[in-house]
C-alpha cells in the first residue's frame, strides 16, 4: 500500500488532534511519533487488563502435570509416554516437567523452562490457579457454549443464534463500571490484537481491532486526506455502524501516525517472529504509547487436540503451540517489566475447559472440565499454585475429567479487583447466586 509522503502527513488533520487529545506537549513531525512521555512513570498509571484466551481447551494435565503423590500415579496410568504423558520420570530427559516450588505437587512442561514462564513464576510474577472452571451445575463440554459463557461472565447463558443472549461481555461491564475509564484524553480504551473483537468485549464500542496493521492512505493522492475525512463524514452519526466506522478511522489514523516497525522492547527482549509474538508485541507497543488503553485481548487457537496431541513436538500440535505461547508471553512480560509498566498490568490466561485425564485411542485427548488459569503481573503474589483440587483419581473425576473447584469468575474478578483496583467485582458478574471470593494471588 502506498505510504504517505511527509507532506501528506503534515496535512493530516487528525494527527494534530490526536496530539491535542492525548495532552502531549510534543508536536513531533517525524514518522516516529511519540504521543507523550511516559506520564505516569512508575507510579499510579493506567491499569491494563490483558485477557488471553486459548481457544479449544488447552490440556492442563500436559501443561501442569502432577509430579508426585497419588495423582502422579493416576496420570501415568492414564496416558502414554511421548504422546500426551508429561512425566517427571520420563526416560527421555527432555520430556520431563520442571518442579514448581509451592506448586501443590505440580510441575510445568519442559517448554516453559529455561527462561520461560517458569522463570516468571520463580520471580513471583506469575501465579497459577489449578482446577478452575465453571461452577457446579453448569458444566459443559461444548466449546462454543463454554467460551460464550465465560466471555459473558455468565456460566448459565444459553448459546447459539437468536438464543436471547445477555448482550455484553464481562470486559465490557468491567470497563463500563471502571471509574478510571476513559482516562482523560484517551484515544482508545480497549484493543484487540487480532482480526475481530471477541465476545468478552461485546457491546463495548471503543475498541481498536488491529491485525498486522498497515498504513492506509487512499490512492487518490492529493485528495487522500479529504477523501478520508469524507469517509468519516459518511459515518458521522451515532448509530452502531457509525460508531464502529469511527473507531476504524481513528485506528487508521493511529496506525498511520505510529512507526510500529521501529520498536525497542524493554528488558532487552526480542519478540519471536511468530503469530503469537506479533500479537503480543502490538499490545505492548500500544500500551507504551499511553493512549488510555485499559484492556487488551488476544486469542490463540489450535488447542483442541483430539488427535495426535504431539505434546513435545516443536513443529506441530500442542508442543509447537506451547512453545510459541511461552516465548511470546515471556517476551511480552519482560518487555513491559523492563519499560516500567508491569506493575499496572494484570494478565490472565485461560481456556474454556480442560481435557480428560485419559488419553484416547488416537493419541489425543477429549474435552474435559477443570483446568489451570495463569495470572501474571507486577502486583501478583506469584511463585505459588493456588486453589484446591479433588485430584485425578478415577473416582474423583466426572466423565473422566478433573472437577473444577474454583469458579473462573473468582480468578477474573481478582485480576480486575485485587490487581487492578476495580471497586465492584460483584457488579461485573451480576449474579445473585455468585459472591466474589478472591483466590489470594493479589498482594
Amino acid at each position, binding site marked *: 500500500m502506498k505510504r504517505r509522503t511527509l507532506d501528506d502527513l503534515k496535512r493530516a488533520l*487528525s494527527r494534530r488532534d*490526536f496530539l491535542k487529545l492525548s495532552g502531549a506537549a510534543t508536536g513531533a513531525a517525524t514518522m516516529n511519533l511519540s504521543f507523550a512521555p511516559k506520564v505516569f512513570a512508575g507510579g499510579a498509571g493506567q491499569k491494563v487488563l490483558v485477557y488471553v484466551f486459548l*481457544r479449544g481447551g488447552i490440556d492442563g494435565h500436559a501443561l501442569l502435570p502432577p509430579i508426585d503423590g497419588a495423582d502422579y500415579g493416576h496420570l501415568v496410568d492414564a496416558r502414554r509416554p511421548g504422546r500426551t504423558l508429561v512425566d517427571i520420570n520420563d526416560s527421555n530427559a527432555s520430556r520431563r516437567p520442571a518442579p514448581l516450588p509451592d506448586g501443590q505437587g505440580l510441575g510445568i512442561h519442559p517448554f516453559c523452562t529455561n527462561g520461560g514462564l517458569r522463570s516468571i513464576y520463580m520471580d513471583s510474577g506469575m501465579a497459577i490457579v489449578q482446577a478452575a472452571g465453571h461452577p457446579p*451445575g*453448569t*458444566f*459443559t463440554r*461444548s466449546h*462454543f*457454549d463454554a467460551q460464550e459463557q465465560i466471555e459473558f461472565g455468565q456460566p448459565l447463558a444459553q*448459546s*447459539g*443464534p*437468536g438464543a436471547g443472549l445477555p448482550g455484553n461481555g464481562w470486559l465490557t461491564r468491567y*470497563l*463500563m463500571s471502571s471509574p478510571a475509564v476513559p482516562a482523560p484524553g484517551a484515544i482508545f*480504551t480497549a484493543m*484487540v490484537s487480532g482480526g*475481530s*473483537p471477541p465476545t468478552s468485549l461485546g457491546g*463495548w464500542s*471503543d*475498541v481498536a*481491532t*488491529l*491485525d*498486522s496493521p498497515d498504513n*492506509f492512505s*487512499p*490512492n487518490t493522492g*492529493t485528495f487522500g486526506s*479529504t*477523501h478520508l475525512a469524507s*469517509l468519516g463524514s*459518511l459515518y*458521522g*452519526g*451515532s*448509530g*452502531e*455502524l*457509525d*460508531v*464502529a*466506522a*469511527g473507531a*476504524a*478511522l*481513528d*485506528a487508521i*489514523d493511529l496506525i498511520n501516525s505510529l512507526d510500529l516497525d521501529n520498536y525497542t522492547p524493554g528488558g532487552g527482549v526480542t519478540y519471536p517472529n511468530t503469530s503469537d509474538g506479533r500479537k503480543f508485541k502490538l499490545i505492548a507497543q500500544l500500551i507504551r504509547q499511553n493512549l488510555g488503553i485499559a484492556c487488551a485481548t488476544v486469542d490463540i*487457537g489450535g488447542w483442541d487436540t*483430539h*488427535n495426535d496431541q504431539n505434546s513435545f513436538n516443536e513443529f506441530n500440535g500442542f508442543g509447537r503451540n506451547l512453545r510459541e505461547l511461552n516465548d511470546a508471553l515471556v517476551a511480552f512480560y519482560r518487555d513491559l517489566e523492563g519499560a516500567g509498566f508491569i506493575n499496572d498490568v494484570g494478565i490472565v490466561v485461560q481456556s474454556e475447559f480442560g481435557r480428560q485425564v485419559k*488419553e*484416547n*485411542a*488416537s493419541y*489425543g485427548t477429549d*474435552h474435559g472440565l477443570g483446568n489451570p488459569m495463569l495470572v501474571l503481573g507486577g502486583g501478583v503474589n506469584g511463585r505459588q499454585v493456588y486453589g484446591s483440587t479433588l485430584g485425578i483419581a478415577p473416582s474423583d473425576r466426572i466423565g473422566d475429567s478433573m472437577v473444577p473447584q474454583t469458579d473462573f469468575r473468582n480468578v477474573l474478578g481478582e485480576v480486575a479487583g485485587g490487581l487492578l483496583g476495580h471497586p465492584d467485582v460483584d457488579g461485573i458478574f451480576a449474579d445473585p447466586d455468585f459472591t466474589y471470593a478472591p483466590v489470594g494471588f493479589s498482594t
Partner: protein
Amino acid sequence: MSDRQLGLENPSRRKLFKSRTQKRTLVRQDVAKQGGYQTDNLSDAAVVPPLAVRVLTRMGFGLRRTELVPQEAPDPERIFSDRFAFGSNLLGRDDVAYFQSLGPTDDLRLERYVDEQLRDDLPDPEWESRKAAYPNSFDILDEDLATTYSERECAGFNDYAEPQRQVERAAFTRACYGHRQLHELMVDFWHNHFNIFSGGDEDIYVSWADWDKTIIREHAFGNFHDMVQASAKHPAMLHYLDNYANEAGGFNENYARELFELHTLGAINYLGNSSPTEVPALPTNPYAGLGDPLLDALDVSDPTYSVQSEYTDDDVYEAARALTGWRYDDEDVDVGGECVDGGSGAFQVNEGEHDGGQKSILARGFRTLPADGGAQHDGEVAIKLAAYHPGTARYIALKLCQRLIADDPPESVVQAATDTFYANRTHPRQLALTLRTILLSDEFKDPATWGKKIKRPFEYIVSAMRAARCDYTWRFDDSDTDRFLREFDDAGQRLYWWRTPDGYPDERAVWMGSNTLAQNWRIIDWLVDENNDNDARRVMRILDTTLDNFDGDPTPRELTAFWCEWILGFTPDGGWVGPQGTFWNNEPTELGKILMRFVTQQFDTQDQDAPPWPADLGIPRNELRNDPNPNRWHRRLRGLVQLILWSPNFMQR
C-alpha cells in the same frame, strides 16, 4: 457560477474538511460507557432502498449493472415461461430493471424472482463462458473424485492443493457473474455450516473440488438429511473432524460432537449437565411416519418409542461409538519407491475398528441400536436421528433466517421456516421449499427488517465489483488474482480458511471491528485504482461507464446523481442531490452532501482557500480520462465512486 455572486458562504478547503476526530472519539466513548446506541438504525445516514434493491442485496451478492436500462412498464400479458428468453437480456445487465420487469406489483415480482432463482435449470451463460475461457483454472471442477485423488493426493503441494485453489477462484467468479445468485449465496452458507478448514492436510486440499460440487452445490436446494449423510462420508469431513481415526476401545468424539452441536440440533438444544434419563421427552415420536427403512427396521419409528427433546454429552459419546470404523480409501500405490496413486478417497468401513456394542442415542437411556449392526448401518442411523429431529428444524431455520433477514430475526418467520423444514424432511427439495417460505414472508419484505446486518467481506467486495461494472475473472497465472487473494485474506474471510468447525460467524458485531472495516475500505481502494489507465486490463470500468453514459461534459452534480443511482440501484424521492443551483450543504441527503463537497473541492493545492469548482459546470471529458493537473478529475471520479462504495448505504443488508 461562483457561489460568491449569490452571497452564500464559500468555504475554503480547510473549512470544508474541518476535522471531526475529537467529536467522534468522544461520542464513541460516551456510547461505550452508556452501553447503548441512540438510534435503531445502524447508521443515521442510510436510506431504506426499494424492494428490488433489498431483494437483490439479500438474496445474492447485490445488483449487477453493465448498463442502465430504461424502466419499462411491465406487460401484463407476458407469461412467466417467457422469462428466460426475455430475462437473459436483462439479468446481469441491469438487475434492478430485470426485477421490475417481472410483474406489475412488488409481491408478484418477488415471487417470480424467487421461483426463478430456485430453479435448477436456470441458465448461467456468463459463468460458463468465463470458465471456458480459462480452462487451466477450472478443469478440475468437473473431474470425479477418484481421478483427482489418485493423481494428486501423494504428489507435491502444488498438485494436491490445486483443486482447492480452483474452487476458490471459481467461487469469486461465480458470485460476481453468476445468474444463480441465491444458489451461490446458499453455497457460501452451507460451506460455513459444514465448515472445514481446507488448508490443513493434503487429503482435504485434494478432495476440495468434489466436496464443493457433490456435497455443497448438489444439496444447497435439496434435502438436508441427504446432505448430512453425504458430508459424513466425504474424505474432507472424515479427516477434518477426526472421524477417520475414530475407533473402538477409545473413541474420538470430535465429529460426533460437531454433528450434534453444529450440523444438526445445535448448541441451543444441548443439555450438557444432564443425563439422558433426565431430559424431557418429546410429546410425539418425530421418527414415526417418516418412512425411513433403517429407522423402521429398528422400531425407532414406533409411536411408543420415547425421544429426548434435547441432546446430552452421553448422546455425543454414543454417536461417536456408532461412527467408529468409518474410513476412506487413502491407500497409496508405490512403484519403485515412488507413489503413483494416492487412493480413491472413496468411503469405506473397517468393521474391525467399529464398536459393535448396543447404543442409546436420544432415547432417554433406552436402547436405540442393537449390537452388531455394522459400522455403516450404525453411523447412518446416528445421523438420521440427529438430522430428522425437530430441534434440527428449528436450528437450521434460525440460521437461514439469520443469514437472509437479520441477526435476531422475528420469531414468526423462524417458526414458519421451521414448520416448512420439518414437514418436508424427506422431500428432495426441502431446502428450496424452506427458502421459499422465508423469502416470500412478510418479514422478509418488511422494510423495518432491512439494514440490521452488514455485508461480510465476501459479500461486500463482490457486490462492489458487481455494482461497479467489473469485468475480471479470477484465475491462475494472473498477478491481479494473486494480489486480490492476499488482500482479501487480510479482511479476515479467506474462503474455506476458518479453522474451527463453526464456520465464519454471521453476527454483525464480528464484522464491524476496525480491522475488518479498514481492510474492506483498503481493498475497494485498490480495486478501483487497479489497471485504471490501461483499458484492456481494467478491473472496474469506472471511466468507460462514465463516458458511455454522458454525451457532453458532465457536471459534478450529474456525475454524483448518476453514480449513486448506478451503484445503489435507486434514487430516493427528492434525489440524492438537489436541483441545479443547490449549495452543497443543502443537498437533500447526507450522502449527496458529502459527495458534492468532495467532488467540487478546490483544485489549487497551493491555495488552501481557493473556491470549489461550481457544482453545475461541465467537466471536460478529456480531463476525466487524462487526469491533468490542476484538477485531477480522474482521481476525483474514482474518489467519488469509492465513497459510494464505502458508504453505509452500500454496507448494509
